[in-house]
């Protein structure tokens, strides 16, 4: 993101290292840097999460509202993404500078969540044709250190995992109108089923190979990057007592997009997609285990809450 100036020799050094699957900080081509994740940081949102990935800091808040479903999709709820690139992140985002980037990120998130196999909107239906839940997912980029799409998708999945949808107690039909009753108890709610929500992986093409989670120096060596959105495995996000109860899982791509002024060869494209899927599957497993552990700690009152103090 920032204007890093690299000499030609440094770029050659990075390119040769990537060719041998060895990067300047010792990672392999599909390793991520360590991340910190915390959910439930914003008390007024139905669900929230904060993710720090090296220099990138993302805060996601999920708000739920009751809305009328679309006439051609009466049994489905709605979901909307808003990305806000604040001027805190970099001075380039001042005024309307960050608008293009915000639009492109919200666009790709919308496409990733479009298929029912990625996120089933049926779970947001209250009364078919009359009332449904609408989720507003607000993504705030607090600090921009490269690799935004990955961090945003992780934070969104974590926030959705943390989202509580209140139980609708009664839905009376009163002359065509629906009367809803929700209880006052904030814990009388259900969790969303986000096991299959997609995770985006950005692969930067450097030379003939692609790297995952590039640093700013590596990003300035690359002309084109590929974004692959892979659906998640519900196994890690639910408490299944019996392993055989689960249907066989196969990771699927829910969105693929290219970014940058360059082009790729067909072989590059194939390798990159394969790499992206492998990286996403590992990431998904790690995220699921972390989120599950956090939820268990919260239920047993063992969790320390740091919020923004760390």
């Amino acid at each position: 993101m920032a204007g890093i100036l690299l000499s030609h020799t440094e770029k050659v050094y990075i390119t040769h290292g990537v060719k041998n699957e060895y990067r300047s900080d010792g990672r392999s081509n599909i390793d991520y840097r360590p991340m910190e994740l915390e959910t439930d940081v914003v008390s007024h949102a139905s669900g929230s999460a904060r993710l720090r990935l090296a220099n990138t800091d993302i805060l996601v808040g999920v708000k739920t509202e009751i809305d009328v479903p679309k006439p051609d999709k009466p049994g489905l709820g709605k979901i909307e993404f808003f990305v806000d690139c604040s001027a805190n992140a970099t001075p380039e985002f001042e005024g309307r500078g960050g608008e293009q980037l915000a639009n492109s990120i919200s666009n790709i998130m919308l496409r990733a969540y479009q298929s029912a196999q990625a996120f089933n909107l049926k779970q947001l239906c209250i009364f078919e044709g009359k009332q449904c839940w609408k989720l507003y997912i607000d993504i705030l980029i607090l600090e921009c250190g490269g690799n935004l799409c990955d961090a945003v998708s992780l934070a969104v999945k974590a926030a959705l995992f943390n989202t509580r949808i209140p139980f609708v107690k009664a839905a009376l039909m009163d002359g065509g109108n629906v009367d809803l009753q929700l209880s006052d108890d904030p814990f009388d709610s259900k969790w969303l089923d986000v096991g299959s929500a997609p995770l985006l992986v950005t692969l930067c093409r450097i030379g003939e190979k692609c790297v995952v989670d590039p640093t700013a120096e590596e990003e300035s060596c690359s002309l084109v990057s590929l974004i692959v959105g892979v659906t998640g495995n519900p196994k890690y996000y639910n408490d299944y007592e019996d392993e055989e109860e689960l249907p066989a899982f196969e990771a699927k791509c829910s969105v693929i997009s290219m970014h940058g002024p360059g082009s790729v060869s067909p072989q590059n494209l194939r390798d990159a997609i394969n790499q992206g899927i492998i990286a996403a599957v590992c990431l998904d497993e790690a995220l699921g285990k972390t989120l599950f552990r956090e939820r268990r700690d919260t239920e047993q009152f063992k969790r320390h809450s740091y919020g923004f103090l760390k």
Partner: protein
Amino acid sequence: MPLDYKRFNGPEDSVSYKRFTADYLKSYDELHSELIDETGHRKDGRAMDEARPMYVRGNFVSQAKGSSYIEMRGTKVVCSVFDPREIVHQNEFSTVGLLFCEVKFAPFACKRQRQSHVPDSEEKALSVALRKAVGPTVCCQLFANFQIDIFVYIIESDGSCLAAAITAAGLALANAAVPMFDVVTASSVAIIGDKIFIDPTEDEEHLAMISPDTNTNHGVITMARLNGLMQIADFRQIGSLDIECILKVTDILEQECQKVFPKIQKTLVGYVKNGIMEQKRLSEEGKAREAKLKDKMLEWRSSIVNNSV
């Protein structure tokens, strides 16, 4: 749909009459069975792997530097390209030029709803996709600090709009004599289950975006390819597809993009040939006129000399 407050808009809660027709209430399975008939052909009579015949023409808009028109049965796309102009709101010096792409639907272009005059998110996304696809082809370093405008207007949309727009933009840029690295062609594919529809119509695309209840593949993939350099300029997928399907479709799309290329090539060569013939004709006419003028001048000169004598 965002409203354009400078125009008089219809009542806000008006709804398309099509919502009350029998067509609207058809279920997913009914629509799916309609797409392919018993002989394995699609609704418009094509085979599964057959693309629609394409009509390609350049020099369509006389006021633009370069333009093109592409028609694939129901999809009709016009593209105009203009000379480099100063970048508006430019703050810093840059060593490369910019491409400004805008894709617009005509209000009567889509069959499902009326498109508003204000660009909505779909048009903006298409503009970004077009810029990504056409960006690698143009020699941007030759017009630093300036931008080249590419305007695509979709007159009628029946599936594969982005692919048609990219091909039209590539042809219009070549028609405008903008220095390019290569000619770009694009094609798209819709996947429903294990059926692959090449060059899908709007009905096929619409159904491919909806997921059936089971975990089957569904989606739409669009690819833009640089033919001489054999590189992929843009690859866009939406839906839910597994990896083998994507890899198989990548091969199919490459072949489809390659099939479009000879038409573009033929059009460009045709225009150069016409240009050469036109130049020859003009120079011959010019010489004939000059010869006539010379004769007249000699005639007058001799008449003046005769009169003064």
